[in-house]
Protein backbone atom coordinates (compact mmCIF):
# COMPACT_ATOMS: atom_id res chain seq x y z
CA UNK A 1 0.00 0.00 0.00
CA UNK A 2 1.36 3.38 -0.98
CA UNK A 3 1.95 6.06 1.64
CA UNK A 4 -0.18 8.54 -0.30
CA UNK A 5 -3.33 6.50 0.31
CA UNK A 6 -2.48 5.97 3.97
CA UNK A 7 -1.75 9.65 4.71
CA UNK A 8 -4.81 10.84 2.78
CA UNK A 9 -7.18 8.39 4.48
CA UNK A 10 -6.03 9.58 7.89
CA UNK A 11 -6.26 13.17 6.69
CA UNK A 12 -9.93 12.62 5.85
CA UNK A 13 -10.57 10.76 9.12
CA UNK A 14 -8.92 13.62 11.04
CA UNK A 15 -11.14 16.05 9.14
CA UNK A 16 -14.28 14.23 10.27
CA UNK A 17 -13.11 14.16 13.90
CA UNK A 18 -12.24 17.87 13.66
CA UNK A 19 -15.69 18.62 12.36
CA UNK A 20 -17.31 16.87 15.32
CA UNK A 21 -14.99 18.35 17.96
CA UNK A 22 -15.12 21.87 16.54
CA UNK A 23 -18.91 21.55 16.39
CA UNK A 24 -18.93 20.67 20.08
CA UNK A 25 -16.54 23.55 20.76
CA UNK A 26 -18.88 25.99 18.98
CA UNK A 27 -21.89 24.74 20.91
CA UNK A 28 -20.17 24.71 24.31
CA UNK A 29 -18.04 27.82 24.05
CA UNK A 30 -19.94 30.16 21.74
CA UNK A 31 -23.55 29.20 22.41
CA UNK A 32 -23.16 28.94 26.17
CA UNK A 33 -25.69 31.68 26.81
CA UNK A 34 -28.33 29.67 24.95
CA UNK A 35 -27.64 26.02 25.64
CA UNK A 36 -25.91 26.14 29.07
CA UNK A 37 -23.87 23.02 28.36
CA UNK A 38 -20.92 22.19 30.63
CA UNK A 39 -21.04 25.62 32.25
CA UNK A 40 -22.34 25.16 35.82
CA UNK A 41 -20.95 28.52 37.07
CA UNK A 42 -23.18 30.96 35.19
CA UNK A 43 -23.89 31.52 31.50
CA UNK A 44 -20.41 32.89 30.69
CA UNK A 45 -18.80 29.78 29.16
CA UNK A 46 -15.33 31.31 29.05
CA UNK A 47 -15.27 32.45 32.69
CA UNK A 48 -12.35 31.10 34.74
CA UNK A 49 -14.71 29.07 36.95
CA UNK A 50 -16.38 27.32 34.03
CA UNK A 51 -13.04 26.74 32.27
CA UNK A 52 -11.53 25.20 35.37
CA UNK A 53 -14.62 23.06 35.88
CA UNK A 54 -14.29 21.66 32.35
CA UNK A 55 -10.51 21.22 32.70
CA UNK A 56 -11.06 19.11 35.80
CA UNK A 57 -13.05 16.55 33.77
CA UNK A 58 -10.96 13.78 32.25
CA UNK A 59 -13.16 13.62 29.12
CA UNK A 60 -12.42 17.30 28.40
CA UNK A 61 -8.69 16.77 28.93
CA UNK A 62 -8.73 13.83 26.52
CA UNK A 63 -10.87 15.63 23.93
CA UNK A 64 -8.55 18.67 24.11
CA UNK A 65 -5.55 16.43 23.40
CA UNK A 66 -7.47 14.63 20.63
CA UNK A 67 -8.48 17.96 19.07
CA UNK A 68 -4.86 19.08 19.17
CA UNK A 69 -3.67 15.82 17.57
CA UNK A 70 -6.16 15.72 14.72
CA UNK A 71 -5.85 19.48 14.14
CA UNK A 72 -2.07 19.25 13.89
CA UNK A 73 -2.18 16.21 11.62
CA UNK A 74 -4.85 17.67 9.35
CA UNK A 75 -3.17 21.06 9.13
CA UNK A 76 0.40 19.87 8.73
CA UNK A 77 -0.59 17.30 6.10
CA UNK A 78 -2.29 20.12 4.19
CA UNK A 79 0.81 22.29 4.52
CA UNK A 80 2.98 19.38 3.31
CA UNK A 81 0.72 18.95 0.26
CA UNK A 82 1.08 22.61 -0.61
CA UNK A 83 4.86 22.52 -0.19
CA UNK A 84 5.30 19.31 -2.18
CA UNK A 85 3.32 20.84 -5.02
CA UNK A 86 6.16 23.27 -5.56
CA UNK A 87 8.00 20.48 -7.41
CA UNK A 88 10.68 20.12 -4.74
CA UNK A 89 13.60 17.81 -5.33
CA UNK A 90 13.03 14.36 -3.73
CA UNK A 91 15.62 14.97 -0.97
CA UNK A 92 14.07 18.34 -0.11
CA UNK A 93 10.57 16.83 -0.18
CA UNK A 94 11.69 14.18 2.29
CA UNK A 95 13.30 16.85 4.48
CA UNK A 96 10.02 18.81 4.46
CA UNK A 97 8.16 15.69 5.61
CA UNK A 98 10.66 14.99 8.39
CA UNK A 99 10.63 18.61 9.61
CA UNK A 100 6.83 18.72 9.64
CA UNK A 101 6.64 15.43 11.54
CA UNK A 102 9.11 16.75 14.13
CA UNK A 103 7.28 20.08 14.42
CA UNK A 104 3.97 18.21 14.79
CA UNK A 105 5.30 15.87 17.44
CA UNK A 106 6.90 18.78 19.32
CA UNK A 107 3.73 20.86 19.30
CA UNK A 108 1.62 17.84 20.21
CA UNK A 109 3.91 17.06 23.16
CA UNK A 110 3.85 20.65 24.38
CA UNK A 111 0.10 21.03 23.93
CA UNK A 112 -0.67 17.69 25.57
CA UNK A 113 1.53 18.59 28.52
CA UNK A 114 -0.30 21.94 28.85
CA UNK A 115 -3.74 20.28 28.63
CA UNK A 116 -2.80 17.68 31.21
CA UNK A 117 -1.27 20.34 33.48
CA UNK A 118 -4.52 22.34 33.26
CA UNK A 119 -6.41 19.18 34.20
CA UNK A 120 -4.23 18.46 37.25
CA UNK A 121 -4.26 22.12 38.37
CA UNK A 122 -8.05 22.21 38.10
CA UNK A 123 -8.29 18.98 40.09
CA UNK A 124 -5.90 20.31 42.74
CA UNK A 125 -8.00 23.50 42.93
CA UNK A 126 -11.03 21.40 43.88
CA UNK A 127 -13.03 22.11 40.73
CA UNK A 128 -14.35 18.63 40.33
Amino acid at each position, binding site marked *: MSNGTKYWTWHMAAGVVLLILLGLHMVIMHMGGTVHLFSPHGTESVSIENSQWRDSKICFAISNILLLGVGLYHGLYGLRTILL*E*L*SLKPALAKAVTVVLVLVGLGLFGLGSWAAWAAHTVALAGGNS
Partner: protein
Amino acid sequence: MAEPKATKQINFHVTRYNPEKDPKPYIQTYKVDVADGMTVLDGLHWIKENLDATLVWRYSCRMGICGSCGMLINGSPTLACNTQILHVSQKDITVGPLPNFEIIRDLVPDLLSMFDKHAEVMPHIIRDEAELNSPKGEFYQSPEQLEEYLQFTYCIKCGCCMGACPTLATDVRYLGPMPLTALQRYNADSRDEGFKIRTEVAGGDSGAFSCHYAGECSRVCPKGVDPGKAIQLLKRKLVLDYLHLAGKKQPCKKLEGPGQGKVLSGMTPPPRTIEKVKIITK
Protein backbone atom coordinates in the same frame (compact mmCIF):
# COMPACT_ATOMS: atom_id res chain seq x y z
CA MET B 1 -17.31 24.86 -53.81
CA ALA B 2 -17.77 28.61 -53.67
CA GLU B 3 -15.67 30.61 -51.22
CA PRO B 4 -17.82 31.54 -48.19
CA LYS B 5 -18.54 35.24 -47.94
CA ALA B 6 -16.47 37.03 -45.29
CA THR B 7 -18.69 38.42 -42.59
CA LYS B 8 -16.33 39.83 -40.01
CA GLN B 9 -12.72 40.78 -39.43
CA ILE B 10 -11.37 39.17 -36.26
CA ASN B 11 -8.03 39.93 -34.63
CA PHE B 12 -6.13 36.70 -34.00
CA HIS B 13 -3.60 37.20 -31.19
CA VAL B 14 -1.39 34.18 -31.70
CA THR B 15 1.46 33.06 -29.46
CA ARG B 16 4.67 32.71 -31.44
CA TYR B 17 7.82 31.04 -30.20
CA ASN B 18 10.83 29.51 -31.84
CA PRO B 19 13.09 28.14 -29.08
CA GLU B 20 16.10 28.38 -31.39
CA LYS B 21 15.64 32.11 -31.97
CA ASP B 22 13.29 33.69 -29.47
CA PRO B 23 14.21 34.25 -25.82
CA LYS B 24 10.55 33.87 -24.81
CA PRO B 25 7.11 33.52 -26.39
CA TYR B 26 5.48 36.65 -27.78
CA ILE B 27 2.11 37.55 -29.26
CA GLN B 28 1.63 38.33 -32.94
CA THR B 29 -1.66 39.75 -34.19
CA TYR B 30 -3.27 38.86 -37.53
CA LYS B 31 -6.47 40.25 -39.02
CA VAL B 32 -8.53 37.39 -40.33
CA ASP B 33 -11.63 37.58 -42.54
CA VAL B 34 -14.00 35.23 -40.83
CA ALA B 35 -17.09 33.69 -42.40
CA ASP B 36 -19.88 32.13 -40.43
CA GLY B 37 -18.99 28.53 -39.54
CA MET B 38 -15.21 28.96 -39.73
CA THR B 39 -13.33 27.17 -37.00
CA VAL B 40 -10.20 28.42 -35.26
CA LEU B 41 -8.31 25.78 -37.22
CA ASP B 42 -9.70 27.25 -40.46
CA GLY B 43 -8.57 30.67 -39.25
CA LEU B 44 -5.04 29.40 -38.67
CA HIS B 45 -5.01 27.86 -42.15
CA TRP B 46 -6.17 31.18 -43.56
CA ILE B 47 -3.31 32.97 -41.79
CA LYS B 48 -0.79 30.45 -43.10
CA GLU B 49 -2.09 30.71 -46.67
CA ASN B 50 -2.55 34.48 -46.80
CA LEU B 51 -0.47 36.20 -44.13
CA ASP B 52 2.33 34.19 -42.56
CA ALA B 53 3.59 30.85 -43.84
CA THR B 54 5.91 30.43 -40.85
CA LEU B 55 3.11 29.88 -38.31
CA VAL B 56 3.25 26.33 -36.90
CA TRP B 57 0.61 24.18 -35.25
CA ARG B 58 -0.36 20.52 -35.09
CA TYR B 59 -3.54 19.04 -36.55
CA SER B 60 -4.78 15.98 -38.34
CA CYS B 61 -8.43 14.90 -38.63
CA ARG B 62 -10.21 18.32 -38.50
CA MET B 63 -13.28 16.72 -36.94
CA GLY B 64 -12.60 16.39 -33.19
CA ILE B 65 -11.46 12.80 -33.27
CA CYS B 66 -7.67 12.69 -33.31
CA GLY B 67 -7.00 15.18 -30.50
CA SER B 68 -4.02 16.79 -32.26
CA CYS B 69 -5.14 20.42 -32.33
CA GLY B 70 -5.58 21.05 -28.60
CA MET B 71 -4.85 24.75 -27.97
CA LEU B 72 -5.54 27.53 -25.50
CA ILE B 73 -8.30 29.51 -27.18
CA ASN B 74 -9.48 32.63 -25.36
CA GLY B 75 -7.92 31.24 -22.19
CA SER B 76 -9.60 27.86 -22.36
CA PRO B 77 -7.95 24.64 -23.53
CA THR B 78 -9.98 23.17 -26.37
CA LEU B 79 -9.74 21.72 -29.88
CA ALA B 80 -9.19 24.29 -32.61
CA CYS B 81 -11.15 22.18 -35.10
CA ASN B 82 -14.11 21.98 -32.75
CA THR B 83 -14.36 25.69 -31.96
CA GLN B 84 -16.13 28.12 -34.26
CA ILE B 85 -14.53 31.55 -34.21
CA LEU B 86 -17.75 33.55 -34.06
CA HIS B 87 -19.02 31.40 -31.21
CA VAL B 88 -16.18 32.55 -28.95
CA SER B 89 -15.53 36.09 -30.12
CA GLN B 90 -16.85 38.91 -32.32
CA LYS B 91 -13.64 40.97 -32.33
CA ASP B 92 -10.52 39.49 -30.69
CA ILE B 93 -9.42 35.94 -30.15
CA THR B 94 -6.28 34.69 -28.43
CA VAL B 95 -4.70 31.43 -29.54
CA GLY B 96 -1.82 29.89 -27.61
CA PRO B 97 -0.23 26.50 -27.03
CA LEU B 98 -1.64 24.24 -24.29
CA PRO B 99 -0.32 25.33 -20.87
CA ASN B 100 1.62 22.97 -18.61
CA PHE B 101 3.70 21.66 -21.52
CA GLU B 102 7.00 22.70 -23.05
CA ILE B 103 6.55 24.48 -26.37
CA ILE B 104 8.16 22.86 -29.40
CA ARG B 105 7.25 25.78 -31.61
CA ASP B 106 4.45 28.36 -31.81
CA LEU B 107 1.26 26.42 -31.03
CA VAL B 108 2.85 22.98 -30.81
CA PRO B 109 3.15 21.63 -27.25
CA ASP B 110 5.50 18.81 -26.38
CA LEU B 111 3.09 16.08 -25.23
CA LEU B 112 5.82 13.55 -24.42
CA SER B 113 5.59 14.19 -20.68
CA MET B 114 1.87 13.31 -20.83
CA PHE B 115 2.43 10.11 -22.77
CA ASP B 116 5.27 9.07 -20.44
CA LYS B 117 2.87 9.41 -17.50
CA HIS B 118 0.21 7.59 -19.49
CA ALA B 119 2.57 4.65 -19.97
CA GLU B 120 3.43 4.75 -16.27
CA VAL B 121 -0.15 3.84 -15.27
CA MET B 122 -0.05 0.67 -17.42
CA PRO B 123 -3.11 1.49 -19.53
CA HIS B 124 -3.88 -2.01 -20.72
CA ILE B 125 -5.65 -5.12 -19.48
CA ILE B 126 -3.47 -6.88 -16.93
CA ARG B 127 -4.14 -10.57 -16.40
CA ASP B 128 -2.24 -13.76 -15.94
CA GLU B 129 0.42 -13.96 -18.67
CA ALA B 130 -0.19 -17.66 -19.36
CA GLU B 131 -3.88 -17.01 -19.92
CA LEU B 132 -3.17 -14.08 -22.21
CA ASN B 133 -0.67 -16.09 -24.24
CA SER B 134 -2.98 -19.07 -24.73
CA PRO B 135 -6.56 -17.86 -24.37
CA LYS B 136 -9.21 -20.52 -23.83
CA GLY B 137 -12.24 -18.41 -24.71
CA GLU B 138 -13.87 -15.01 -24.79
CA PHE B 139 -14.69 -12.77 -21.84
CA TYR B 140 -18.31 -11.99 -21.13
CA GLN B 141 -19.03 -8.42 -20.10
CA SER B 142 -22.54 -7.29 -19.22
CA PRO B 143 -23.84 -3.83 -20.22
CA GLU B 144 -23.62 -2.82 -16.53
CA GLN B 145 -19.96 -3.84 -16.37
CA LEU B 146 -19.29 -1.94 -19.58
CA GLU B 147 -21.01 1.15 -18.16
CA GLU B 148 -18.50 1.19 -15.28
CA TYR B 149 -15.74 2.47 -17.55
CA LEU B 150 -17.31 3.26 -20.93
CA GLN B 151 -17.20 7.07 -20.75
CA PHE B 152 -13.51 7.00 -19.87
CA THR B 153 -12.74 5.19 -23.12
CA TYR B 154 -13.88 8.26 -25.07
CA CYS B 155 -10.68 10.10 -24.12
CA ILE B 156 -8.70 11.08 -27.24
CA LYS B 157 -5.53 12.12 -25.39
CA CYS B 158 -5.69 15.70 -26.67
CA GLY B 159 -4.16 17.06 -23.47
CA CYS B 160 -6.81 19.75 -22.89
CA CYS B 161 -7.47 18.46 -19.36
CA MET B 162 -3.73 18.52 -18.64
CA GLY B 163 -3.56 22.11 -19.84
CA ALA B 164 -6.47 23.11 -17.61
CA CYS B 165 -5.24 21.38 -14.45
CA PRO B 166 -4.15 23.89 -11.77
CA THR B 167 -2.32 21.20 -9.80
CA LEU B 168 -0.22 20.25 -12.79
CA ALA B 169 0.65 23.94 -13.24
CA THR B 170 2.58 23.89 -9.98
CA ASP B 171 3.55 20.23 -9.66
CA VAL B 172 5.05 18.85 -12.84
CA ARG B 173 5.41 15.42 -11.27
CA TYR B 174 1.64 15.05 -10.75
CA LEU B 175 0.32 12.42 -13.14
CA GLY B 176 -2.57 14.61 -14.24
CA PRO B 177 -6.18 13.98 -15.28
CA MET B 178 -5.62 12.07 -18.52
CA PRO B 179 -3.32 9.31 -17.17
CA LEU B 180 -5.39 8.95 -14.00
CA THR B 181 -8.56 8.63 -16.07
CA ALA B 182 -6.88 5.94 -18.16
CA LEU B 183 -5.84 4.22 -14.95
CA GLN B 184 -9.40 4.26 -13.63
CA ARG B 185 -10.69 3.08 -17.00
CA TYR B 186 -8.66 -0.14 -16.66
CA ASN B 187 -9.21 -0.53 -12.93
CA ALA B 188 -12.97 -0.43 -13.54
CA ASP B 189 -12.80 -2.95 -16.37
CA SER B 190 -14.16 -6.31 -15.20
CA ARG B 191 -11.59 -8.13 -17.34
CA ASP B 192 -8.67 -6.40 -15.63
CA GLU B 193 -6.81 -7.77 -12.60
CA GLY B 194 -4.12 -5.11 -12.31
CA PHE B 195 -5.48 -2.95 -9.47
CA LYS B 196 -2.80 -4.04 -6.99
CA ILE B 197 -0.03 -3.49 -9.52
CA ARG B 198 -1.26 0.03 -10.29
CA THR B 199 -1.85 0.95 -6.63
CA GLU B 200 1.71 2.16 -6.09
CA VAL B 201 1.51 4.73 -8.85
CA ALA B 202 -2.19 5.59 -8.28
CA GLY B 203 -1.77 6.25 -4.55
CA GLY B 204 1.76 7.63 -4.65
CA ASP B 205 2.82 11.22 -3.99
CA SER B 206 2.13 12.12 -7.64
CA GLY B 207 -1.07 10.11 -7.88
CA ALA B 208 -4.77 10.62 -7.35
CA PHE B 209 -4.44 12.26 -3.93
CA SER B 210 -2.65 15.26 -5.41
CA CYS B 211 -5.90 16.18 -7.17
CA HIS B 212 -7.75 19.01 -5.39
CA TYR B 213 -10.88 18.53 -7.44
CA ALA B 214 -10.84 21.91 -9.13
CA GLY B 215 -12.90 20.22 -11.84
CA GLU B 216 -11.44 22.22 -14.74
CA CYS B 217 -10.41 19.00 -16.50
CA SER B 218 -14.04 17.88 -16.69
CA ARG B 219 -15.21 21.32 -17.80
CA VAL B 220 -12.84 21.63 -20.74
CA CYS B 221 -12.88 18.05 -22.06
CA PRO B 222 -14.01 18.30 -25.69
CA LYS B 223 -15.29 14.72 -25.64
CA GLY B 224 -17.45 15.05 -22.54
CA VAL B 225 -15.29 12.73 -20.45
CA ASP B 226 -15.33 13.46 -16.72
CA PRO B 227 -11.74 13.01 -15.49
CA GLY B 228 -12.66 14.62 -12.16
CA LYS B 229 -15.13 11.82 -11.54
CA ALA B 230 -12.60 9.19 -12.60
CA ILE B 231 -10.11 10.53 -10.05
CA GLN B 232 -12.71 10.63 -7.28
CA LEU B 233 -13.74 7.04 -8.05
CA LEU B 234 -10.09 6.06 -7.98
CA LYS B 235 -9.57 7.76 -4.61
CA ARG B 236 -12.61 5.98 -3.19
CA LYS B 237 -11.40 2.61 -4.42
CA LEU B 238 -7.90 3.19 -2.99
CA VAL B 239 -9.23 4.26 0.41
CA LEU B 240 -11.71 1.39 0.64
CA ASP B 241 -8.97 -1.02 -0.34
CA TYR B 242 -6.69 0.43 2.37
CA LEU B 243 -9.45 0.06 4.95
CA HIS B 244 -10.19 -3.48 3.70
CA LEU B 245 -13.75 -2.39 2.94
CA ALA B 246 -13.61 -2.81 -0.81
CA GLY B 247 -15.79 -5.59 -2.08
CA LYS B 248 -13.99 -8.30 -3.94
CA LYS B 249 -14.03 -7.69 -7.68
CA GLN B 250 -16.21 -10.22 -9.44
CA PRO B 251 -14.06 -12.18 -11.86
CA CYS B 252 -15.11 -11.71 -15.44
CA LYS B 253 -17.10 -14.67 -16.70
CA LYS B 254 -15.58 -16.52 -19.57
CA LEU B 255 -17.30 -18.23 -22.44
CA GLU B 256 -16.43 -21.88 -22.80
CA GLY B 257 -14.68 -21.65 -26.11
CA PRO B 258 -14.07 -19.43 -29.09
CA GLY B 259 -16.99 -18.62 -31.34
CA GLN B 260 -19.62 -18.74 -28.60
CA GLY B 261 -20.86 -15.24 -29.31
CA LYS B 262 -22.21 -13.39 -26.30
CA VAL B 263 -24.08 -16.35 -24.85
CA LEU B 264 -22.96 -18.01 -21.63
CA SER B 265 -23.58 -21.69 -21.08
CA GLY B 266 -26.97 -22.16 -19.46
CA MET B 267 -28.36 -18.97 -20.92
CA THR B 268 -31.15 -18.96 -23.46
CA PRO B 269 -30.06 -16.97 -26.47
CA PRO B 270 -32.41 -14.16 -27.57
CA PRO B 271 -34.41 -15.00 -30.70
CA ARG B 272 -32.73 -13.92 -33.88
CA THR B 273 -34.33 -11.07 -35.79
CA ILE B 274 -35.03 -13.29 -38.76
CA GLU B 275 -36.89 -15.78 -36.51
CA LYS B 276 -38.95 -12.91 -35.05
CA VAL B 277 -39.85 -11.83 -38.58
CA LYS B 278 -41.00 -15.37 -39.38
CA ILE B 279 -43.23 -15.44 -36.29
CA ILE B 280 -44.79 -12.11 -37.19
CA THR B 281 -45.36 -13.30 -40.74
CA LYS B 282 -47.15 -16.41 -39.51
